[in-house]
């Protein structure tokens, strides 16, 4: 077997592939993350439509696949096959490249997002700065799209969006800085900008930063949570694409694949910013109470969670199978859902097996690699679960709130969030100095 595969399997690669200088594994990670995020976006698409529908006493997609499970795939095929319309008056090249810019910015952020201590493409030592810098490039795609469309509504949408993202980035950045300050509350007194380092700092200090210097961490987190909705142009801050005002805002003139790239970028950004919030304040990949409940028994119990989650999902799918009306029309759907349930059950079984197998404290190479594999699954699971909570909140906000007006949004950004985040930053610094 080639060396670069073995090097990982025998555990000689510690840390992220980027860190270890393994281009092969870095590429594999990039591929996995790209696919994973794309699938997550499709799942999110389905989930949003279903959850939103149930908030609104509707059923949502029900036709394509059981409970509309295949709807995102059908949508994707439809969007890819649609005619690609470029308005005659548009600036062709810029119009063509705008969604690419948005997409690139959205996906580039994932290079530094740590799904686990070694489950990241790279552990950049300026990870958080890289993240802030790249994610703010996303606005460029929107502005360029609005300008290139050569149409009034997209132009207004782009203007709104650029003003909004630039203003909220300030509050967002200050909130991030106050979290970074907290990383220096250790023995050596040196902080870190590395995303993995930030989670490790939380591990060392034995507290998620949301609870650190209560309520300072919480306030900074809330500011970030508000700013990230504005940053991703989601309701109630979806001014840039307010469909009742600007028809569809910056992507009014887009259709088909190009439009779907914007959507992909939007959802990818949502996942990215949620990941950042999780990393900075919610302990990243850490399971709940890693310091309080540190006995190996607790480790084992928490390592059962991924498997149990899939058991739960399989059970829900099974309930769907049972509740499906008995009629020949539903036979295919019933079979499909049953297969889906079986698949989920299989994954659950696999995960549970790994959890049980990884429990052994054997020191053989095989056993330790299973244990490491189990650990990796745990890390990714807890990270994804925390991000999923944020994703659900995005949907919930959208169902509940009316849309802010542009000037009110700016007022909230500059007159409320900015002073508070500045204050939190200063107080955090003072408290940090006093405590240390």
């Amino acid at each position, binding site marked *: 077997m080639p060396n670069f595969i073995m090097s990982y399997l025998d555990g000689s690669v510690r840390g992220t592939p980027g860190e270890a200088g393994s281009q092969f594994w870095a590429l594999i990670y990039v591929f996995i993350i790209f696919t994973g995020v794309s699938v997550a976006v499709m799942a999110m698409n389905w989930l949003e439509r279903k959850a939103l529908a149930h908030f609104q006493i509707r059923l949502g997609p029900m036709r394509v696949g059981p409970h509309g499970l295949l709807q995102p795939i059908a949508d994707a095929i439809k969007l890819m096959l649609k005619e690609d319309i470029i308005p005659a008056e548009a600036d062709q090249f810029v119009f063509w490249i705008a969604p690419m810019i948005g997409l690139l910015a959205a996906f580039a952020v994932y290079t530094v997002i740590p799904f686990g201590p070694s489950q990241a493409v790279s552990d950049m030592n300026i990870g958080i700065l890289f993240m802030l810098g790249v994610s703010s490039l996303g606005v460029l795609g929107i502005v360029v799209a609005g300008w290139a469309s050569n149409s009034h509504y997209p132009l207004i949408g782009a203007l709104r969006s650029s003003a909004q993202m630039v203003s909220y980035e300030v509050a967002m950045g200050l909130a991030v800085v106050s979290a970074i300050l907290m990383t220096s509350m250790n023995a050596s007194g040196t902080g870190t900008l590395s995303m993995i380092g930030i989670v490790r700092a939380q591990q060392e200090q034995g507290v998620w930063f949301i609870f650190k210097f209560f309520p300072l961490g919480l306030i900074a987190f809330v500011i970030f949570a508000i700013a990230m909705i504005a940053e991703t142009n989601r309701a109630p801050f979806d001014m840039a694409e307010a469909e*009742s005002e600007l028809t569809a805002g910056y992507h009014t003139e887009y259709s088909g694949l190009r439009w779907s790239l914007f959507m992909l970028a939007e959802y990818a950004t949502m996942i990215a910013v949620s990941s950042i919030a999780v990393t900075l304040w919610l302990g990243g990949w850490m399971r709940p109470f890693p310091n309080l409940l540190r006995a190996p028994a607790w480790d084992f119990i928490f390592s059962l969670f991924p498997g149990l989650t899939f058991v739960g999902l399989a059970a829900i799918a099974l309930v769907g199978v049972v509740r499906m009306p008995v009629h020949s029309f539903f036979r295919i759907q019933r079979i499909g859902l049953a297969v889906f349930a079986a698949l989920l059950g299989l994954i659950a079984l696999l995960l549970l097996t790994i959890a049980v197998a990884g429990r052994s404290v054997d020191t053989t190479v095989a056993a330790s690699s299973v244990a490491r594999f189990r650990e990796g699954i745990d890390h990714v699971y807890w990270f994804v679960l925390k991000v999923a909570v944020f994703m659900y909140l995005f949907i919930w906000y959208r169902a509940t709130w*009316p849309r*802010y007006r542009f000037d009110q949004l700016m007022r909230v950004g500059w007159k409320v969030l900015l002073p508070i985040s500045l204050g939190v930053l200063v107080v955090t610094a003072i408290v940090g100095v006093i405590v240390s």
Partner: protein
Amino acid sequence: MNAGTPDGSNAHTNDRTHDVANRGLSNLDLDAPATPYLDSNELIINMGPQHPATHGVLRVILKLDGEKVLGTECVIGYLHRGVEKIGENRTYTMFNPYVDRMDYVAAVSNGLGYCEAVEKLMNVEAPARAKYIRVILTELNRVASHQLWLGTHALDIGAMTPLFYTFRDREEILKIFEKYCGARLTTHAFRIGGCQYETYAGFEKEVKNFLTYVAPKIDEYEELLTTNRIWLERTKNVGVISSADCVALGVTGPVLRASGVKWDLRKAQPYAAYSEFDFDIPVGTNGDTYDRYLVRVAEMRQSLRIIEQAVNGIPEGPIMARVPKVIKPPVGEIYHSIEAPKGELGYFIVSDGTTQPYRLRVRPPSFVNLQALNRMVRGLLVADVIAVIGTIDIVLGEVDR
């Protein structure tokens, strides 16, 4: 549409006389000479006729400075069907279904106004039972109209969910209509002289069930919106219009009442059986979008009160007055108006003694109220234009007729 280009604001030349795209631009006091596209300081954008928030085919031309509205001009008529001309060419009876197509979300009110106007012209009075049935259906329709308004208005402001709640409950009203007369939207429920259909078995019970069903639902809408901070920010002090302006602009209905004028035709000049019921006229104080919202929600509750009294007190008796088979009012003219959900809906009918009206004029509340849009949105932002269009509660079928 590229109104800022030199050819967009040109003086009318012969070949442009028929140009639909340039309709209505001359009034936007574009005193500055046509400027090159990118040098233009003001942005002229065309909201509608295909726009998600213009409630049909309203076209509003906005002159913007950034996002601030400097002036608006409404271009209407995209749904013009010549209802008044049709009225002159149909008999009184044949014209009755046409009125439903004006304000199609409050078709029952339209029918009530028309039938009462013709009855007044013929000096006929509908029997008491018919009047009660009319009141019940009209008030149900008022609730339905307000529900539709609330849902779409909230959707315009960005709250998606109330739309589905209101439509769910509006459905119950439409079911009652369907059972009563077979139609859900354009009901044609009334006839000149009374009602054609006796209430179906279980009508009273179903209406009462609806009343108990919908009262908590109205609380539910309010729960979502009334104290919602974003809703308050979006509606308070937006689109303010004073009572004096309302009167001068002829604005009626909830918009007038939200400005503090306690005037409702059901009280001021009672028609049908309204003088027999006990209800309040909700009024606002500020005349802003929020007050109009509160007034309409309160009106829904008052309508429920009226319906309850009417269902409990519905008399027995005939439902059709003694009217000849061929409706042939004597020579004369009549103006009759009712309080439709949108405001004063009037019918002015001139009869020459034949079976067809000589002239039939509809005084549409939406048309007149829409005129206030310009006054209400000047100086606000684009997002507020949407809120204000929604709050006036227009139905383009009635504006354009």
